[in-house]
């Protein structure tokens, strides 16, 4: 157990309000984003509340084999999968149009439709442009859940591949494929939009 968790866990078990505030402040955002990635906006808030309750109940059994952060995110993941199963669904990894760049290359592997010149060429510019936010949100919304979950954990939360495998319980090669597809899809949406 790392030092921070070793100090936090006993304080949480003792009901220390400051410890609760710290943990929620530190991890609630990531938990919500992961929930949203798997079950969508509508169910995410409720799911994360449920995850916090399960974490509270399970805290006495927390052994520190992983960090508190990964443990909390795994609870969210398990809760999300459980909710999808209740809807007789499994989280999707692939979409029908899984190669977002299909047709962009010719038979010799050269660009048929090369990347455009983007006028919005900084992160700040992309996020500030309302229509671009809409393009990004649309592309994220259309993605299969597992692609969105991997993209969220890697590129939004900055987690390592090992941590992502740990949270989502999928192989490293699977993480890489899902991440690649998700990034391609998002890039293609932004590129198409900046050409218009």
């Amino acid at each position, binding site marked *: 157990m790392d030092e921070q968790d070793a100090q936090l866990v006993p304080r949480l078990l003792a009901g220390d309000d400051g410890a609760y505030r710290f943990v929620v402040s530190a991890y609630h*955002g990531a938990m919500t984003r992961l929930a949203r990635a798997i079950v969508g906006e509508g169910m995410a808030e409720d799911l994360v509340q449920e995850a916090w309750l399960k974490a*509270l109940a399970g805290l006495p059994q927390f052994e520190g084999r992983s960090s508190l952060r990964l443990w909390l995110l795994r609870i969210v993941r398990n809760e999300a999968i459980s909710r999808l199963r209740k809807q007789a669904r499994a989280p999707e990894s692939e979409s029908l149009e899984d190669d977002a760049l299909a047709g962009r290359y010719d038979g010799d592997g050269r*660009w048929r439709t090369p990347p455009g010149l*983007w006028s919005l060429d900084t*992160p700040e510019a992309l996020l500030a442009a309302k229509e671009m936010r809409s393009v990004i949100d649309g592309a994220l919304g259309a993605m299969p859940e597992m692609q969105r979950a991997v993209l969220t954990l890697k*590129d939004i939360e900055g987690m390592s591949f090992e941590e992502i495998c740990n949270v989502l319980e999928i192989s490293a090669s699977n993480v890489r494929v899902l*991440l690649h597809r998700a*990034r391609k899809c998002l890039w293609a949406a932004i590129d198409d939009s900046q050409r218009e």
Partner: protein
Amino acid sequence: MLSCHEIGEKASDYLDRNLPWWTRAQVRMHLFLCENCWRHVAQLRLVVKTLRLSAKHEDSARESTDKTVQFLRSRRQH
């Protein structure tokens, strides 16, 4: 030399430094020579940075934290 399509397929691994050194060298050589692929990889890097920044904007909202802390406090008291 790797084709543009192959570069596209390796772009994500290239950004994450997940390629064997020889493949990484081949990718870099191609990027040095191919403006389109160089642009594609630069734009992919920009997309990743944009996603990271979007989370920072979101995290500045305290309302959700306060609400959750109150909710947990009320459940602990029961």
